[in-house]
């Protein structure tokens, strides 16, 4: 995101309901660069702040396919072309025996890509983040709910935005230094 001395304007709410409502209103008011913070997942909050395309499933699918394919091809290549040997009279390409490893590889790769895909898309790890500059933000992982309008938002103006957030019933509104 664009670097400005100010990161954004943050307001605090005390229930999921108020937060979701506020998020909706902010979005309707034409703010695009908005985000909300909560101590647990809240249904509909992401949509409220205008988040729609979640790519995690796609990444996972690709991972799974790669894993499964490489698993089977590895076994196929080893048993039929790299060093084919007669094992107990079984054919070199004993596909029924290869299914299990293929399956496990699928799961393994899918799982790994799901997790690391999610982290990557979330831009984690990010131990430093401007929002931590707000002292009360420590409660975002306990029982407080926050809404932020980023300074990079075209409609952002310190005075205007503060007034707007107050109108939403947000408390302890503060400008987040970058």
């Amino acid at each position, binding site marked *: 995101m664009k670097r400005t001395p100010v990161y954004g304007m943050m307001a605090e709410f005390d229930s999921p309901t108020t937060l979701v409502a506020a998020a909706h209103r902010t979005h309707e008011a034409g703010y695009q660069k908005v985000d909300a913070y909560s101590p647990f997942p809240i249904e509909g909050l992401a949509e409220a702040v205008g988040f729609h395309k979640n790519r995690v499933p796609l990444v996972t699918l690709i991972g799974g396919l790669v894993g499964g394919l490489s698993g089977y091809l590895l076994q196929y290549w080893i048993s039929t072309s790299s060093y084919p*040997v*007669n*094992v*107990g*009279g*079984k*054919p070199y390409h*004993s596909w*029924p025996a290869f299914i299990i490893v293929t399956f496990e590889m699928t799961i393994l790769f899918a799982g790994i890509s799901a997790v690391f895909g999610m982290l990557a898309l979330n831009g984690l790890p990010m131990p430093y983040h401007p929002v931590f500059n707000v002292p009360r933000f420590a409660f975002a992982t306990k029982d407080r709910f926050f809404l932020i309008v980023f300074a990079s938002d075209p409609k952002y103006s310190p005075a205007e935005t503060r007034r707007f957030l107050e109108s939403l019933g947000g408390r302890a509104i503060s400008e987040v230094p970058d």
Partner: protein
Amino acid sequence: MKTEDENGKRRREEVCPGKKSTLDLDAARARIADTKGPEFWRSLEELAGSPEWQEMMHREFPKGASEWLDSVSRRGFLKLMGASLAMAGMTACTKQPLEPIVPYVRQPEELVPGRPMFYATAFTLGGYASPLLVESHMYRPTKIEGNDKHPASLGGTDIFAQASILEMYDPDRSQTINNLGEVRTWGNFLEAIRGPLSAQQAVQGAGIRILTPTVSSPTLADQMRELLKIYPQAKWHVYEPVNRDNVLEGAKLAFGQPVETHYKLENADVIVSLDADFLSAGFPGNVRYIREFAKRRDPDSVKMSRLYVVESATSSTGAKADHRLPMRAGEIEQVAELLSKFLEQGHPSDVFSSQREKFAAAVANDLRAHRGSSVVIVGDHQPPIVHALAHSINQALGNVGKTVFYTDPVDANPINQTASIKDLVADMRAGKVDMLVIIDGNPAYDAPADLNFADALKSTNVPVRIHLGLYQDETAELCQWHINKAHYLEAWGDARAYDGTVSIVQPLIAPLYNGKSAHELVAILAGQADPSSHEVVQSYWKKQHPGADFEMFWRKSLNDGWVESTAFAPKQVSIRPLPSISAPTSPGAQNAIEINFRRDPSIHDGRFSNNGWLQELPKPMSKMTWDNPVLVGPAMAERLGLKSEDMIEIELYGKKLTAPVWVQAGHPDNSITVFLGYGRRRAGRVGTGAGFDFYPLRQSATAWVATGVNIAKTGETYKLATTQGYQTMDTPVGQRPLVRTASLDEYHKEPEFAKEEEPPKDLTLYKPYPYEKEPYAWGMAIDLNACVGCNNCIVACQSENNIAVVGKEQVVLGRHMHWLRVDAYYQGDRDNPKAYFQPVPCMQCENAPCEVVCPVGATVHSSEGLNDMVYNRCVGTRYCSNNCPYKVRRFNFLLFQDWETPQLKMMRNPDVTVRSRGVMEKCTYCVQRISEHRIDSEREDRKIQDGELQTACQQSCPANAIVFGNINDPNSGVSKLKSNPRNYSLLADLNTRPRTTYLAEIRNPSEELGS
């Protein structure tokens, strides 16, 4: 080439060490010498025995792993190395260290490095020679084979001959000349006896006594005669605990002169054995007899012979019998009498007073129907009268000259050995003996108890006591002078086979410890100037074969392995009237418990007790190893409330000793059998302390059978090590068709009876592997009808494939390493069951269950259908063994191989990898032999001929029961057998498609007795 392979064990893979240890002999000898002879070994024995050691063992192997404690006394040296080596293996799987390679300075002409050579020689037991061909790698004898050209072998051997190679390399063998425990030189000895000898010259050697075992060596006999010429008053005594006095006396009784009796079993339609175990090692000529017997047991080609056995214990001969009658040894005499009676008069009626009468009558009728084509054989331990009776019966039936032959005795000095040693002890006690020379015997251990030889040797004043022997044994201990004897593979000599044929015994290797042979010692006594055994033997034969062509004659004799036309000519002897039939033994004696003393099937009279291969060799009937329990019949055991492994106290003539019991199916009632040769005090690391010594009960008057034993249960138990889990094919839910049998008639009616419906070839998703495209497809067929359970194949396999000995405790745990085992199964009446033998090597299944489950592909199939075992790839999951329905795989649970002892490294077959700890191993049809022959044949641009390539077990089998070859060749011997209707595969219903198959066993019972 000779590669010193010292750092073998630290090599990249620890399965390999020692394999290529084509050791520099001189270097090895030097190293053994450098370590100052005995100390080298003794120190270890002391270490093994010392309290610190025991304590250390406790720490290292806490209780519960107590097998170690015992293993120390057994195989201490080996165990000692265990830990360090294992570590070496663990750490050193990365880089191969630099290895030295040591060429000759002057290389012998005939030597092609890397190719074995074969030399003919002969092994002698009880005076009887077994002719051999010995394989030698870089002048190290490594494997013993029978001399296939020699009538007494025809390629077969017996277990003792096979195992004698280990005896040769035994690190416990005496390595020095000792005087009162001090190491001395041969020179010292020569000086020391010069005085006494000259003193004896004055008195014509009146004080000289020489005690030898049975001697058939013409040279030694000649030397002795020469010696007795010089010292007319000297006496030559002969004694062996397992002697043939009764045979001798029997012959005298019948013919008035000692004769050797031998048999042509290939001409015999009916064989009657009166307690004669003529199918097992130790019986003179057994190798040849097994061959002939097996030949006549083939139901397909020839008229199958019939075998009746009356026996006082259980033996493999009894197991092969068509009709077997268990009977106390003392009563067999009466059977013999009945037999001769019925032969003359026939049996009056068809009502029989007793089982034995019925049996005798039936046998008599059968014999009468086969005049001239029958034979009655009597066991060595039966009293003279029985032998005499047999002689008269054979005469009466006109068998002499057809199935029975008489010749001069093979024994060069045929005297009553028991009497002989009695005289000796008498003279000793009478102080008549100034110089006693004991050549290769251990009377202090095995002489009759009533003579108390050891005591005589100790207490009586025999000024000069000289012992020549392979070991510093119980007798050596009591002699001032001990001279370490050269092993027969180390020195020249000669000996007669059972038919009189003389074989020259030529050495395969220079004496490892500069041992001396009997020839050399006797030459010295005869005042000669220290000649070599070679000179002695050759000069004798020069006398026998004077003339210019001696060199020719000599070379030929060495080459063939026997001396032309030395076999005894058949001898015409006339039977003399026998003394009137002795009165039947009193009923008192009838009820008294009888004890049989028998030579041990594995270690004979005790001379082989330090031989690990033989100690661990399962005895044919009980599959017992490392011990000699008292054999008791089931009925008697029940009566006395005895179970196997119970300890009992045996009392005979006031002497008591305790020993464990083994309940042996088929053993006659009211009688017990004990095997001699165990309980040695000074046998060596392997033999000392193993089993129980029964010689103290053995009196000269009742050397083989005694009555009036008292038995009492002590309440303790004793762990015995058998290698076979169960000896029955019957389970609570039905019988398992492992060994398939039928009577001859049934077989003729239904030849295909053995064919269990095998699964069709298309019973699988997969299409079978195209073995038929290959030039070779290896297979094996084992004829259960021919196999007599002599165990020879097991020892041959052990020798060929560097198989480790594991010790009693490991056997108890079921960890013995034999690649090839011979299962013995009993069926039917426990008091007189039918018994069957089944040799079980790896089946080399085409659909091998073991291969599919191996995660690293350490066992896979070769294109020729071998179930390859790649030791260096094995990680040791043991899954293959679990999944092997035949349980033929063996696992190195601990470090079983000895990697340190230079002698044992020299013994190894360099063509077979030495397996180490954590590795699975098994039979591979002697793949090293297959490769060798394939390469040779390919170099000569031809195919391997049928029969040219033999597995170790096949080659050594006296019965030709094992046939191996190319099953892609329809004319090969194995293909022919596999097309025999009797051919079946074990556990065929599992569809493993084994390459090893069996030919069902056929018995030939008489109508009269029924099956």
